[in-house]
């Protein structure tokens, strides 16, 4: 057991080293100084309290989306539709805030209702993919991908149509909400809302407990490993798959609601910020382990925020962060595959 852990760790480090190697080659090909680039990313992510807070702002929706994906991954599902689920969460949260803006509700209640609406929106969209899969025989990858496009179209239509600014349809999104409906931050000028941080921590903790220590988690795992065998053991696999979609949708919807209430304070065209796809990478890299996923998400968020300095200081494109993240996942998966083969060979199985 211990040996296996050590091997895993070594493969992880190997993947990181290879990813760094590829990124360095990319930098050298672009005639850019690699060390300065990495130093700037680090400074851009940790150089001051403000940027560190920005990393956490980015971490919150990413870790919420990732938490949701841990549930669907456990059930053996490729929930590519998470992007749409985040978007629907944002749309529902916006809808709630627009409806409540004039009402004389305490802001905390209005924001709370917006979160609830966002979760409902995400869950609805996820269940749609789930229903397509369980009742319609549509693989969740294709169903989810299709619904992602639908959610984007719906979002754009709302921003340029019914919810447009007075007289102007703007790519910068809907009119910002009144400041009272922004999720409060610690100090004026700070971006980090402590409540959103608490939500993210609660989300990942909940998923950890659910998957690690609950009967539900155990059965979900069984469904994920082998749905037919699970069915034979008396586990209603379809119901568990739908429950996994529901759980992921709730968390993804919450991520969307956070984007609206705590980050942009309005609905914008690319409201999901790609956190769904990024979350898929985080969950893969973290081998579906919740605590590790939280850390990997933090690393990815730091890369995203830190890389803003690249174009400013070194005139480099920020997409270097994406190169690093992508190659990291790729090498990690390759490493996993290689390790699997080695193990099989040792056991004298198939070559």
């Amino acid at each position, binding site marked *: 057991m211990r040996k296996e852990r050590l091997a895993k760790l070594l493969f992880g480090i190997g993947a990181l080293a290879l990813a760094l190697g590829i990124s360095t080659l990319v930098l050298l090909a672009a005639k850019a100084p690699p060390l300065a680039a990495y130093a700037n990313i680090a400074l*851009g992510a940790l*150089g*001051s*309290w*403000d*940027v560190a807070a*920005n990393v956490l702002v*980015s971490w919150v929706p990413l870790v919420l989306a990732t938490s949701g994906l841990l549930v669907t991954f456990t059930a053996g599902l490729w929930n590519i539709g998470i992007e749409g689920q985040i978007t629907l969460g944002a749309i529902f949260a916006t809808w709630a805030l627009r409806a409540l803006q004039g009402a004389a509700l305490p802001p905390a209640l209005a924001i709370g209702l917006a979160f609830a609406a966002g979760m409902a929106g995400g869950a609805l969209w996820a269940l749609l993919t789930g229903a397509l899969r369980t009742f319609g025989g549509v693989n969740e990858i294709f169903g989810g991908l299709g619904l992602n496009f639908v959610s*984007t179209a719906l979002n*754009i239509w709302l921003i*340029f*149509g019914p919810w*447009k600014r007075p*007289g*102007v*349809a*703007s*790519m*910068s999104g809907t009119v*910002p909400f009144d400041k009272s409906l922004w999720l409060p931050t610690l*100090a*004026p*000028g*700070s*971006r980090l809302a402590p409540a959103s941080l608490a939500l993210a921590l609660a989300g990942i903790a909940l998923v950890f407990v659910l998957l690690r220590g609950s009967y539900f988690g155990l059965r979900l795992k069984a469904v994920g490993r082998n749905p037919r065998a699970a069915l034979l053991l008396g586990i209603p696999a379809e119901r568990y798959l739908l429950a996994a979609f529901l759980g992921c949708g709730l968390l993804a919807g919450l991520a969307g609601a956070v984007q609206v209430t705590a*980050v*942009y304070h*309005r609905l*914008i*065209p*690319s409201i*999901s*910020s*790609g*956190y769904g796809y990024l979350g898929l990478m985080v969950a893969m890299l973290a081998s579906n382990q919740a605590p590790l996923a939280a850390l990997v998400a933090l690393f990815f968020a730091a890369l*995203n925020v830190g890389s*803003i*300095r690249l*174009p*400013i*200081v070194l005139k480099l494109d*920020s997409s270097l962060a994406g190169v690093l993240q992508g190659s990291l996942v790729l090498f990690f998966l390759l490493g996993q595959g290689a390790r699997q083969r080695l193990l099989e060979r040792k056991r004298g199985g198939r070559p």
Partner: protein
Amino acid sequence: MRTSRILAIALLGLAIASSAFGQSAPPAAGSKLTIGLVLVGPYNDRGWSQANYDGLQYVKAKVPGVDFIYIDKANSADRPGTTVSQLAESLVSQGAKMIIFSSDDMMDEANKFAQEHPEIFVVMTTGDQSWKEGKAYKNLPNMINIMGKMEYMKMVAGVAAALTTKTGKIGFLGPLINDETRRLAASAYLGARYAWTSYLKKDPAKLEFKVTWIGFWFNIPGVTSDPTQVADDFFNSGYDVVISGIDTTEAVAEAAKFTAQGKKVWAIPYDYAKAIDEGKGVSLGVPFFNWGPAYAKAAKDAMAGTWKARFEWNGPDWKNINNPDTSAVGFNKGTLSKEASAAVDRFVAELAKGLNLWAGPLNLQDGSAYLKKGEKASDQQIWYLPQLLQGMQGQSVSK
């Protein structure tokens, strides 16, 4: 440093703090100033963003002690997860004391940034929040708005188009619908109609002028209409001159393509003086912004401590509209017939002498009166033009 400031403000209480820094501009920056430029598109887009970038190159060359840094593609599609004010703060952390937000899409974020950073000089290009007589006025002591009177050069573009078209059909490739884009499309129409009736002595009813909006300043696949497609549609349906109102150069590229196929069509790009090089032989000229002088003035004010919140709507230097040191807007002539070229010169001379096409009688697109006979449009009437003008085809208000 900032944390302690924030703590101090928190202690003072919000109300006191906001009134305390609601009063005065930031202190003089002194002999050295780093400017941070926030661009909506790529810095080398050969359009709007590059014109702004070149404006700061001018400042760096002309004002001793000034340097600048920039972040381009500052929009949430290109930089997911970031906000424009956050990007501006990254520039501040690299030493910028003055920030230029150079797109109308950045209005909310520029206001937020200006309020949260009273110690930073803020310019918002194209905005009107520092215009006391404007509709969006906000009391922001550190905010200057800068815009060029492009209306004049769009009229010149209209003249060039009217003198060139063989079919009497002019297309206008519009970005999104707002006050600015409406008044610029209308200006192009006014210029075209004036040349059509006064120079060519033709029947105004025989001039077609159609506006098609794509939805944003540049193409975003899946979100906006494709400007290439829109330009093609114009050329395929008898419109032989397309005036571009967007930030990129699709209209010129399509005109070149159609010309290569033997069709006689032309285009007029926008924003950037050197955009004329793109379409040799098909580009009639380019109305362009020259941001350098206004940005230089703002930089000098920041350094000397003479900064005052204000709204600038700068016109051309009528002695030489293309003077890089004095003219805020200009027109670079391209492939024009002798006759059209002469008409453009004549028109510029008439404008310089006081010709005003924004004068009554003028009706809005729906037929309602905009200006009575003899009435001249005020700056507010032009800036906030509520619809396209009568005689123009195309959508007036976004639905």
